[in-house]
């Protein structure tokens, strides 16, 4: 039995979405693991860049923040925020952004601002950072989530970053020319969005996870009719993740004792 952690499974599942030639916007945590895995395993001609302005760093060590010195080393160019955002939305480029969030709704809109009332929040989070911006400008957004009912909600406490907004053509009607939510990768599976309604559906469930578990962990009704079991990570993929992408094991985390729940 091959053993792997949630973060490793999520990084590989998300990494498979990246194609050669994609310009990948990475954040921290699983996001940087996924972006680096994508480049080293699935799409060697993809380019990783950061909102802080580092373009195509060598990433010999995993960055702990998007301003980590490790995003400035071995780059093709070190610039700044304005330059980075000129890349995210550039009409010539296909840009894919990795984000995380505290809450998500069925149209892939994200909350990274607060739980409860905005002015007197029960829990305050970091805020938009560049998330609202990349959700506006990128060709597609892949979001990492812990799959819990309180996080997959009918209504966000605060809509920080726009996905498919209210579904259908509503994103375009806002005046946003491209982009939208491409996929959501959780510790249980991969969710995608219907072509026309833009509603979330279950595309893949991870090995050892039941569809019922995913339905129970989602705070709104979800279509599971197209769900298939996800590929198990191969020993080769895991080896690259552990030995090349995150040799210090800062994000991969310890391998779980039991196979995935």
């Amino acid at each position, binding site marked *: 039995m091959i053993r792997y952690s949630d973060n490793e499974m999520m990084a590989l599942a998300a990494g498979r979405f990246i194609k050669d030639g994609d310009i990948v916007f990475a954040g921290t945590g699983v996001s940087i693991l996924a972006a680096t895995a994508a480049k080293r395993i699935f799409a060697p001609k993809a380019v990783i860049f950061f909102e802080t302005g580092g373009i195509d760093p060598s990433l010999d060590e995993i960055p702990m*923040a998007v*301003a980590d010195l490790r995003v400035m080393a071995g780059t093709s160019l070190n610039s700044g925020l304005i330059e980075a955002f000129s890349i995210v939305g550039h009409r010539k480029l296909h840009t894919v952004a990795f984000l995380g969030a505290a809450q998500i709704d069925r149209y892939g809109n994200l909350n990274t*601002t607060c739980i409860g009332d905005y002015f007197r929040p029960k829990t305050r989070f970091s805020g938009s950072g560049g998330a609202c*911006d990349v959700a506006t400008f990128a060709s597609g957004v892949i979001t990492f989530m812990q799959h819990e009912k309180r996080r997959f909600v009918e209504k966000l406490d605060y809509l920080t970053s726009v996905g498919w907004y209210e579904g259908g053509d509503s994103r375009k009607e806002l005046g946003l020319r491209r982009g939208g939510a491409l996929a959501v990768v959780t510790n249980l599976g991969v969710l995608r969005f219907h072509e026309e309604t833009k509603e979330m559906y279950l595309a893949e469930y991870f090995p050892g996870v039941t569809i019922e578990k995913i339905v129970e962990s989602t705070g709104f009704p979800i279509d599971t009719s197209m769900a298939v079991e996800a590929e198990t990570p191969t020993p080769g993929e895991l080896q690259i993740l552990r030995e090349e992408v995150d040799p*210090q094991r800062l994000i991969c985390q310890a391998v779980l004792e039991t196979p995935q729940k």
Partner: protein
Amino acid sequence: MNRYPEIADRLMGLDEAVSRFVKNGCQLAIGGFTITRNPMAVAYEIVRQRVKDIHLVCHSHGQALDVLVGAGCVGRLEIAYGGNGRYAPTCVRFKKAIQRSEIQFEDYSNYQMSLRFLAGALSIPFIPTKSGLGSDLMNYEGFPAEVRKEEKVASRKYAKMANPFSEDWDEVVLLPALTPDVTILHAQYVGDDGTVRIKGLTFADIEQAKAADRVIITCEDIVPRSFIRTDPDQNSLPPFFVDAIVKVPYGAHPTACYGFYDYDPKHLNLYRKMAEDDTLFTEYLDEWVYGVGSWEDYLTKVGMEMILKIKANPVIGYAPGLDRK
């Protein structure tokens, strides 16, 4: 001081730079981003001088923001992001201050804040973008109406308009320019002619400096004109934007400075732990800020062992193999 005649009138200590330029109630911008190149030495001096009611304007900030908010120096905040990466996904004292309604705050995004600094630098009153359409950033105004009448505070958070160059429906968001009273940056080098050189990523530092009325630069070192003018493509700001220059080696600790030192994981973890508890946080400030007599004393407390551990490999730019857990 005659060693540097061209900048003699601008070269000063931390105490003088803060007492001359950082006043109660001023609008302040700080350079750097989350755990890199925060002007920490100046932030600590602001805390020591007990400057109050600062209106802080940030894109994504971390350690300096959190110390200033935690020490009670900040009354009002415009911000995109408060976090220290993996060392504090949300800055702890920032989070507490908002949850306890201790400060007035208004949220924007990184790109929006960067554009607002750019607009200030370009001397234009506002700047359009697509970012924010559909977001609650454009639905919640943070500041009460009376604040909006103050100088340096925009009369409204944003406006929307139809693209005047398009026949089709095409809406844009207009963001008000920012012109802070003071911007404080930490740079690697200042030339003895006053030219500033930032190595690695510049974030929005250059826009923040050009947008401000006054600029304080702390630096790792002061270097000869012959060095800084040999490769001027590498330079970030010409001398006439700079009002105060303070040489403070390791002045961004515990945040990182490309080519000089990495962030200090041990200190960032210690800070997060102490910031979580009000009593411990007071102890932190007493020990690391109020109780420190000089910058040399501060670095002595950090200790030679850690100074050497975080010292960057000058070729690679960071400290490879540093224990970052």
